[in-house]
């Protein structure tokens, strides 16, 4: 789908698709009368993504998925920050849930996903990736 769309339309189209699915699920579960109440939110986001995506800025490049090395480095740092904050939030939620004796296992599962992803990431991008085959002299 993405390859046929101009870069500026990709993020709005992806968000429109996700929003349509979410609205369909929400409408089916909570009733279709609730859909018009929340519909303005995705419309505003889609228009904002389209307008921002056309700007000659770092945010525009991010929305168009057309990043150079500096912008990609910035995105990587932001993603790392998001990962750290989410990990801490999940750990805190797990502690609160287990001490208050409420349902704790979803938080434990999310912590497990985080740790598993770290291990997979280390295997994919860790030191062995940079190690050259042993050279015999």
């Amino acid at each position, binding site marked *: 789908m993405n390859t046929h769309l101009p870069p500026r339309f990709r993020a709005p189209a992806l968000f429109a698709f996700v929003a349509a699915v979410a609205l369909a699920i929400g409408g089916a579960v909570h009733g279709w009368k609730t859909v018009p109440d929340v519909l303005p939110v995705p419309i505003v986001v889609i228009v904002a993504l389209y307008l921002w995506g056309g700007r*000659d*800025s*770092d945010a525009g*490049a991010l929305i168009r998925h057309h990043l*150079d*090395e*500096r*912008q990609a480095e910035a995105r990587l740092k932001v993603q790392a920050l998001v990962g750290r904050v989410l990990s801490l939030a999940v750990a805190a939620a797990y502690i609160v849930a287990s001490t208050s004796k409420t349902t704790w296992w979803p938080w434990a599962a999310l912590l497990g996903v985080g740790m598993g992803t770290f291990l997979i990431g280390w295997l994919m991008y860790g030191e062995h990736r940079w190690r050259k085959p042993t050279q015999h002299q």
Partner: protein
Amino acid sequence: MREHRNQQGMTQADLAVAVGVSRQTVISIESGRYLPSLRLAFRIARQFGVPLEQLFEPTNEEIQE
């Protein structure tokens, strides 16, 4: 880098297109806020036809980062 760009009569946007980065990145490099990768640094040096060390002379602090 700005001097070399001006000597060649290029705008920041021209240089950005020539070396395949955004205009904002050219601005960041020229203002010293971003130290480019070796790959990009070589592309810029070749664009101007000068040795790398003539374009980039990072401070000790930048190297230690």
